């Protein structure tokens, strides 16, 4: 496996406890001030407006946000798969120190699929409808590893068995439309892990699936992550899924990161009013409440962003300064960043 054997121990860990906290891991992926703009007929849309984060070896990072928050566009930009000719990507994405933004096809091809792989929400449109699933998995080995036809097919069957597709030997020749949604998602996961990537990016991998199938797929992803020591970036709108799998969490709103921290800390005491509102508004399974704590208003129109903090028209903590100054993302606690002028007060409010 291409997992780097060179881990640089942080000086503090040598003597300290062996807990593998986020700060001590080698940062393999570093995103700095990433911008993605779309030129539309109605004006410039800043879909991603300067986000920075990093991913450590073996880490499970979630990017939580609603539609239009930029969570998905951001990772597509870093994978170099934004095909829209009206899009413009600026900033820096370094993978093991190598710059991916603006990199040539050679480097991208060696990285994408090979070292960073991606699983999409909609397996039906991500898979080729006129190619058997076995061929699509085997194609990974044939193109990237120059493997012979028969070997590729054999590896495809092994992988299909690994992702628990029943009767793999027979179904290797079946086409995507002959699979259920859950099984198609397994095929896509098989393709993603085929070349032993270091990083798996899962973009809403379970959103289109039924509840019981969602649980199966998340379980499979987490199992594979452990088994292959992959880092995971999970893009989701589901607060529950984040709670179950992510060690660290980035919350995005209107193209920016509004909060970042360890999942436990953020859920215990959110440091941004948006995170706080989102967590409070989630209907609970274990009890019925008379009234849900809804966030008021709606997300801003990307063509008419409010001045100051983008969340201020919906924010219960709003003050005059919020309407004028854009709050920068700043460290408010150890290993916790928030883009709120009053982050400390929000955390104290619990």
């Amino acid at each position, binding site marked *: 496996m291409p997992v780097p054997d060179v881990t640089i121990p942080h000086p503090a860990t040598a003597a300290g406890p062996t807990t593998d906290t986020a700060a001590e891991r080698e940062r393999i992926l570093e995103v700095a001030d990433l911008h993605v703009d779309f030129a539309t007929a109605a004006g410039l849309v800043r879909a991603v407006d300067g986000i920075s984060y990093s991913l450590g070896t073996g880490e499970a990072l979630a990017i939580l946000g609603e539609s239009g928050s930029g969570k998905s566009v951001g990772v597509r930009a870093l994978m170099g798969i934004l095909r829209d000719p009206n899009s413009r990507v600026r900033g820096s994405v370094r993978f093991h120190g190598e710059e991916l933004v603006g990199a040539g096809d050679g480097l991208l091809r060696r990285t994408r699929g090979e070292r960073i792989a991606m699983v999409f929400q909609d397996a039906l449109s991500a898979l080729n409808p006129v190619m058997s699933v076995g061929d699509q998995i085997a194609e990974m080995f044939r193109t990237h590893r120059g493997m012979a036809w028969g070997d590729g097919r054999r590896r495809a069957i092994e992988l299909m068995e690994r992702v*628990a597709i029943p009767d793999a030997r027979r179904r290797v020749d079946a086409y995507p439309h002959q699979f*259920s949604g859950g099984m198609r998602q397994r095929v896509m996961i098989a393709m993603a892990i085929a070349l032993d990537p270091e990083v798996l990016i899962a973009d809403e991998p379970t959103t289109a699936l039924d509840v019981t199938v969602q*649980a199966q797929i998340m379980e499979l992803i987490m199992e594979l992550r452990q088994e292959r020591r992959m880092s995971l970036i999970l893009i989701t709108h589901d607060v529950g899924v984040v709670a179950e799998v992510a060690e660290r969490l980035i919350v995005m709103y209107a193209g920016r990161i509004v909060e970042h921290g360890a999942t436990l800390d953020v*859920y215990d005491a959110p440091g941004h009013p948006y995170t706080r509102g989102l967590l409070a508004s989630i209907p*609970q*399974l274990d009890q019925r409440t008379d009234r849900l704590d809804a966030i008021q208003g*709606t997300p801003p129109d990307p063509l008419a962003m409010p001045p100051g903090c983008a969340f201020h028209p919906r924010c219960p903590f709003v003050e005059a300064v919020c309407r004028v100054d854009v709050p920068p993302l700043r460290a408010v606690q150890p290993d916790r960043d928030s883009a709120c002028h009053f982050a400390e007060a929000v955390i104290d409010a619990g």
Partner: protein
Amino acid sequence: MRAEPLARRGEVLLRVEGLVKYFPVRRALGLWTTETVKAVDGLSFELRRGETLGLVGESGCGKSTLARVLMLLEPPTSGRAMFDGRDIFALNRRERFDLRRRIQVVFQDPYDSLHPRMTAEQLISEPWEIHSDVVPRRERPTRVRDLMERVGLNPSRARDYPHQFSGGQRQRIGIARALALEPDLIICDEPVSALDVSIRAQVLNLFRTIQADLGLTYIFIAHDLSIVRQVSDRVAVMYLGGIVESGEQAAVYDHASHPYTQALLSAVPVSDPRQRGRRTRILLAGDPPSPTNPPSGCRFRTRCWKATQLCADEVPALVDRGQGHPAACHYASELPSVASAPNVEPGAPPGPSAAAGRQASRPT
């Protein structure tokens, strides 16, 4: 709005008896063979005025077909549905016309269900073009404003088109449109699934407020169990065209006694990272079987870790076997209820049946 529904709260509004809906499918594979999709296969339930019945189940369980049959969009294969004492499948044209006013629907997708070239005002008043006696023509502009206010839309936006509204606001237009005909029953088919997470709570609260104010009755169809719990008085869990468990929401959620309900509840991610690894999760293997060829006996038995020969031989009736509410499982009274998620005490060992379920049903 009429006060009548409020006064009659608690009466049985709808009684569905043995409802069956099969769809024929023809396949050209060598021979022309005719198969039948058993989308709804013998459903019975009761709905009282002013209450909300939540229907949960995964895709293909028949919940949307049931809604379509009750809206008279599809004729049933057999069975009855007594609405206010009359079988809705045995009505003449005039009575059907009236019934279509009394049962309204709110659809899942507020993007597809509103005509893009009609203003909010036109959309909300359109139902009166057909049912012209509900609101006299000269009162309509005022009534549109009232309806917009009731669903939380600013009446000053009456002349705006759907694309000028956000998803949540569009769903509010859909709700105002359903209310326009002063229905008794609103069938809500996944009404918040297409909305952003931060908007869902607003719309769910709106549904509850309107119900309290107008005494409306809801059938609330959704796949999200947490949402169904928040809005429903009673819940029916569906699997492959049948109800497997039903009862008061607290009974079904806190004392789930059908293995499928237990698995469904345990599959819901819990939004508390401290519960991670402390819950007993029943992982069902595979997908539901095809409704064209459901298993004999209990339809869930092919994925059930408790299944015995009896389950293959006999269809379990939806009855109370001592567990306090009806469940269609031969062993409903013997299955200790798997605590619905976070009720498991930290560090407490999982129950014996749950542990067995996990082993038996986990995909290998």
